[in-house]
Structure formats: C-alpha cells, structure tokens
C-alpha cells in the first residue's frame, strides 16, 4: 500500500493557484502580443525577401538572404525623402496646432467662468460623435475656395483643433487644485502666466499624450491628403506609398520596405512616449 502523501498546506495551495493564474495571464498576453506584432513582423520579413520568395508557398517567415537594397530602392524610386518631409511638416503643424488650441480651450473650460460654459462644452463633446467623413465635403469646398488646394495649409488647417484634445486637457486642468490658482492670483499671476507657468507644467503628461495622438492621427492620414493634393510637391508619405505600389507593381518587396520607412517615425515616437501615452489614457481613471 502506497504511503499517504502529505496534504499540501493552505499557503502552498494559494501559492500554486497564484502561479497558475500568473502563467495563464502571461500566456494570454503572449498570444495577444503575437497577434498584434505578427503583421509588422511579416512586413519586415517581406521587405527583405525577393518577390519570388514572397509569392512562394509555403510562405517564408525568416529571410535567410536579406535583400537590404530594397530600402534604398524604395527611398529612391518612391521619392520617400520628399514625402517624409511633407508628412513631417504637416504633422508638426497639426500636432502643435492641436496642443495649442486644446490648451487654450481646455483652460477656458476648466478655469474661466463665462455664459453658456456647460452648453458650449457639450457642443465641443458632440463634435467627437461626428465622423470626419461627414464634414469632408464641406471642408474640401472651404479649402478649395480659400485657394488652399495643393498647399500645406490645406492639409493641416482643418485639423488644428479637436474636441478630444480640449476634453483631455480640461480633465487634466481640473486636477489642478483651486488653491494653487488662488495662491498664484495673490502672487500677481494673471490667467496667461498661471496657465503657462503652473497649469501647463502640471498637465504635462496629458499634453504629451495629446501630442502623441495628434501625431499618430496626422501622420496616418490618407483620405484627406489624397483629396486636397494633386501636386507631388505636397503629397504626404501615405499617398507616396500608394504611388510606390503602383510604380513597382512587380517589386512588392520594395513596397514593403517603403511601408517600413513610413512607419519608422511612429515606432520611434511610440518607443519614446509610450509611458505618457498610457498615462494620458488612464488619467483620472484612478485616484492618484
């Protein structure tokens, strides 16, 4: 007869349950991460394969002889430098514009008293419900009538202010204690100085998050730049990719390399601002 096994203690059982839970959680996260990263990985792999290898079945998941020259070809054939510069200009314009307008609007909603404040704020929020596609015709007519077709203004101005930005920063400003405003007022700070020296520095995480969102949105724009530009001198990198695909139809690896070049600034941005992005998204969610 087999000897009776000692029964696991209560603490041991709790620990085992904890470890199982942890393992399950990590497994789930790993699967989700693979799902998210896989398309990016395949893009990188395909950019380093020959068109024949890409078309081969079964597909290749690792480039044994990477074709690094696809990147230089994409850069030259696709005129990537020009498109990247255009995208950078438009994105910078939009990002700065959104942060500035959102700061001013949010400050007004958080710290100033004026008639119909609540109603106006609801109107601001309501704009979040309106998809861009609804306003696209009106915006196109406006931009064209202003003579901004094929121009940086045409690309950027319609996106210089967003209800989302005002909302995000208003929430951050509302966290600034009222006493700080009173103290600053006693020390002779008016609204401008209080905003710039106290409120804005304290709302830095939210502003960084807004900057990242604005950057992502502006950089990834496709439909609007396609509609308001015909001249290559003003076209942005996303349109450039479409053209690259059209010109190198038999060189799909070059298109993949172009995609990677276009995505690189975003990857770098996310690496640097990941923390702010998460903090901005969760701001106010938990009492800190």
């Amino acid at each position, binding site marked *: 007869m087999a000897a009776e096994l000692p029964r696991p203690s209560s603490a041991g059982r709790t620990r085992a349950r904890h470890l199982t839970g942890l393992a399950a959680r990590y497994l789930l996260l790993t699967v989700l991460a693979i799902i998210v990263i896989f398309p990016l990985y395949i893009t990188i792999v395909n950019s380093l394969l020959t068109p024949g290898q890409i078309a081969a079945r079964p597909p290749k998941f690792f480039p044994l002889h990477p074709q690094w020259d696809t990147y230089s070809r994409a850069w030259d054939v696709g005129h990537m430098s020009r498109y990247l510069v255009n995208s950078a200009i438009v994105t910078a314009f939009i990002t700065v514009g959104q942060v500035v307008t959102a700061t001013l609007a949010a400050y007004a909603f958080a710290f100033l008293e004026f008639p119909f404040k609540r109603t106006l704020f609801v109107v601001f929020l309501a704009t979040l419900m309106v998809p861009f596609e609804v306003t696209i015709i009106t915006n196109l007519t406006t931009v064209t009538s202003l003579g901004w077709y094929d121009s940086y203004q045409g690309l950027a101005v319609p996106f210089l202010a967003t209800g989302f930005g005002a909302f995000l920063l208003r929430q951050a400003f509302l966290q600034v204690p009222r006493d700080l405003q*009173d103290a600053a*007022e006693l020390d002779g700070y008016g609204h401008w100085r209080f905003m710039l020296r106290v409120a804005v520095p304290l709302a830095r995480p939210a502003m960084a998050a807004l900057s990242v969102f604005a950057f992502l949105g502006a950089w990834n724009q496709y439909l609007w730049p396609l509609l308001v530009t015909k001249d290559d001198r003003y076209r942005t990198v996303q349109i450039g990719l479409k053209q690259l695909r059209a010109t190198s139809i038999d060189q799909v690896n070059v298109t993949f390399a172009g995609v990677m070049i276009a995505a690189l600034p975003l990857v770098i941005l996310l690496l640097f601002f990941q923390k702010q992005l998460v903090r901005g998204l969760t701001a106010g969610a938990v009492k800190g």
Partner: protein
Amino acid sequence: MGRVVLDHVTKKFDEVVAVDDLSLEIEDREFLVLLGPSGCGKSTALRVIAGLEDPTSGTVTIGDRVVNDVEPKDRDIAMVFQSYALYPHMSVRKNIEFPLRTRHVEPADRQIAVNEAAVALGLVGLLNRKPAQLSGGQRQRVALARAIVRRPAVFLMDEPLSNLDAQLRIQTRAELIELQRNLQTTVVYVTHDQVEAMTMGHRIAIMNDGVLQQVGPPQSVYERPANLFVARFIGNPPMNTMEGRVVDREGVRAVEFEGGCLPLDPAHAAAAEASGAKSLVVGVRPEHLAFSDDGALHAVITVVESLGHERHLICRLTDGQMIIVRQGSDVPRPAEGTAVRLAADPMHLHVFDAVTERRIDPR
C-alpha cells in the same frame, strides 16, 4: 500698517448668504482668529479680505485704503492655505521665491530673502527638494516661508494646521505664535478648532451662519459668552445647558427645569426677571459642577472618561438629560452607576433668553 476693517460686509453666492453684514476691526499687529463650524462663512470672510472674492456689499479697508477695487496682489497681504498650495513642479526654493519673482525683485535680493526665510523656518537643507519629497510639517513651513518672504502687512491663514497630525499641530501652533511675535505683523487666522483659537488669538471672532456672534479675548469669550451658540461652541467638554423658568424656592430664586433646579444669585435673578424672558436657558461649565450632599441636581454617573490629568463624568439627570462634570484626577474615581447630587456656584451660572438666545447679565 496692518489694520484691517470690514464694514458691513455681505457676501452672497446666488441666493446663499455666506457672510451677513460683517463688521470687524482688526488692529495692527493683532492675531485675530475667525472661529466657527464648517460653512459658517469664516473662510469666505478671509477670501473677501484677500480679494479672492468680491463682497456683495460693504467695504474692506487694509491700512488706510479701501481695497474693494484693489487686486489681491496689491493688497499687501500673504495667504497660507489649508492645502499649503505649493507648486508641485517647483523646488522649495522656487516655491519660496515665487512671490518675489512676480514682483520682479532682483535675483540677488531674492536669494537673500529666500535664505533668511529658510533659516527662520528650518528649511535650509530642503531648498532643492520638490514638495512631494517633504513631510506635511515641512510643506507647511514652506507655505509659511513663501508668505513671510514678501513681508506683507497682513497674513491670512486658512486652517493651516488642520492637515497636520496632533503632535505636530501643537508644536507648529507655538511656532506660529512666536513667528507672529517676531514679525510683528497682523494675522487673520481661520479655524474651526477652538483650542487653536483659544491658544493663539489675541482676540477671537466667532461666526455662525455667516453672522458674527461675538468678538473678544479668548478668556473673556469663554467666561462671558454673548449667546447660547457661543456658550455651546466654546469649551471642551461643552457647557451644560438646561431650559427652564425662574421660580421661588424657599425664598431663593432658582431656575427650574425638568431634570432639577439651580439656584441663581439675586442679581442674576433680578436681571432675568427684568428682561421679560418667558423661558430661560441656564448654562454651567463642567468644571463648575461639583458633588455636594445638598446639591439640587440629582444625577446618575453613566460613563467615566479618564483623560489622565482629568476626568469627564457623563451623568444623566432624572429626566434623562445628559450633563458633563469635569473632575480632577487627584480625587478617587467614582464608579459608573453611582447616584450623586451635584451643585453649581450661582456666580458661575450663565443665563440666556431661550427665545433670543442672548446672554442675560446681572445688573
């Protein structure tokens, strides 16, 4: 000159009257405490003096000028907030010199002023830290340093000690008194803590429902509360109050109430009768009640609270009303449930009109 005068100041927020016709003179170099329960209007009154709120009516004078239309920064005041209101993104040094920067004081002079304030408040080693790296007491000192660095004519303090723990509060209380003495400046100090009011103020001004109830030196307010609210608010444990009417007891005038009766001295009785008050409230402080074999109050001790240096005996009168007796710890501790007779010296009774709640003084 740090004299502050509030003349018939009223402050309304829509229909809510926060401060109602407040008239108060605060002398130069005086430490005046505005005392009252939450929502009594004391902080609003302070904010009106600071200029953070505009009075609905009335005038505020600081020094020799009416400041109703003067910006807060030009009123020659400094304020210390309950939350300290330190700028979290600035170092201690930057926080302290902030008011000087906004006044365009030269950097060298700023440096001197900050160092002096840091020495005065024991902050020398902390100047490069951020507020989040300081304890509550240290933050409180930084807030004080930021106020004194301006050398204002008037300090306004809004419950500056309420976020400190009990021990630190006692220490800081004493330090604030010394600071005011050294700086020889006017302080208007808001608190709901009567111990702070009693220990710190040259005078205390008690407010309730936006109305000033009484102003005077702490001891005199304690000894002669102007009305029932002040009588019950000042003192810990609070004054015992019983509602009754004047009767004749074997030739002695006394106030009779449901749970017993307390004899009055003849002058007090005469004043009470002359006042025409139909009903009276008689008050007696816990320390003025004592056991006495012929005491007029019959009570049962229900709880004995021992505080080390003294005891509070919670007793019930025959009608169930609670009455508190303060007793020194040098006498034997009475047992709970003991029936006792209590007496009060008629000279230490306080008599109020039950309707108007005003004090009736002997003539």
